[in-house]
């Protein structure tokens, strides 16, 4: 049978639908993981961070993050003693290969690792027009890349600048809190490789998690608390100049 234009027009949509089902398959789910029993967050201990960039490299390797884009990055702050409102912040290549020596070692200098705050009331998920980004029942903000249109609303909405558009797939991408690791009982790649323990994964629903003792006994902040995002990345020892 010769395929005419008419036949092709009929064939293409049905083939597309069929292919979608072929692709979907049945993904391997994590056994023994109950989403309702966890509520994930992270603790970042700024006085422990040495700016080595291990977390940035590990994140890129674990999650195939394209070069020049970051799901986590490290910033170096320089604050002259009175200029708390005007810190100088730099993050060369996300801090991936560490930082060059400081030109000006006066004032205050410190590193701040950044990542998605996995907000309990996240602005980014609220603006998604198609339900492609969402908060999982265990409190992780994820992107369903098969559903994402690439409209970039979420990238604009995130007050922390934690999202980007993947240049090859043209879908929004962000930190998944290594969802493929934490559902298997492992810690995130960034926490796994942190040599000083400056980053620690925290399960806020687990009463035995050391996070509870830490939060009780330390002065801990979140980023941009005035935006009422319900951020779950807690910073210990954070200076007032950090944005």
């Amino acid at each position, binding site marked *: 049978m010769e395929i005419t234009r008419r036949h092709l027009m009929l064939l293409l949509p049905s083939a597309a*639908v069929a292919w979608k089902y072929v692709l*979907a398959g049945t*993904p*391997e*789910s*994590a056994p023994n*993981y109950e*989403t309702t029993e966890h509520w994930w967050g992270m603790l970042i201990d700024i*006085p*422990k*961070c*040495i*700016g*080595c*960039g*291990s977390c940035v490299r*590990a994140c890129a*390797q*674990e*999650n195939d993050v394209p070069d020049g884009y970051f799901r986590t990055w490290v910033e*170096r*702050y*320089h604050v002259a003693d009175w200029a708390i409102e005007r810190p100088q912040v730099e993050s060369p290549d996300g801090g991936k*290969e*560490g*930082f060059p*020596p*400081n030109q000006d*070692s006066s004032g205050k*200098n*410190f*590193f701040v690792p950044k990542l998605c705050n996995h907000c309990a009331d996240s602005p980014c998920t609220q603006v998604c027009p198609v*339900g*492609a*980004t*969402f*908060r*999982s*029942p265990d409190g992780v903000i*994820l992107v*369903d890349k*098969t*559903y994402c249109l690439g409209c970039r609303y979420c990238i604009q909405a995130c007050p922390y600048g934690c999202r980007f558009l993947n240049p090859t797939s043209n879908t929004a991408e962000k930190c*998944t809190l290594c*969802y*493929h*690791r934490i*559902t*298997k009982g*492992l*810690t995130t*790649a960034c926490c*796994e*490789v*942190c*040599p*000083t*323990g400056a980053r620690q994964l925290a399960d806020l629903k687990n009463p035995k998690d050391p996070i509870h003792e830490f939060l009780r006994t330390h002065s801990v902040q979140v980023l941009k608390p005035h935006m009422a995002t319900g951020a779950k990345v807690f910073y210990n020892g954070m200076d007032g100049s950090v944005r």
Partner: protein
Amino acid sequence: MFKDIEHLVRLALVMAIGVVAFVLVRAAVIPRSFGQYGHYRGAALAEISSRPIAFAGHQVCESCHTEVVEQKKLGKHIVVPCEACHGALAGHAEDPASVTPPKLDTAVVCARCHEANSAKPRTFPQVVTVDHSGGIACDTCHQPHRPAIETSAKSVAEGKK
């Protein structure tokens, strides 16, 4: 009264076909797991969590390399997880025979953490490599798993791998 209702019947028929078509298309297009947990595709959770891991985790390393753990316990590097220096080695953990971890250049690896920088915590041990060693490999003098240099001959013999 209902003499000329044929056009209404036709209209109703067209609308009925429209509604049925809408319901059918909607059922075919919307994935079954959409709305399982919320306004998103529930199956996405399993898809995202099925991604393979790259970093094995130090517990896995330690289950075989017990002698390294013993070495590390004697020094400050006990807190440093294996893959912070050795890199992602889930492949090696899975199949130790065929995947061999690459040899590390200590002149590069050590400097990532220990190169002096005024933004690092004051108490963290830092050196300016050029002044400290002139750029030679750190493991010429230090044993990375147990970095403090000990003077007695016995401990030096122990310290060498």
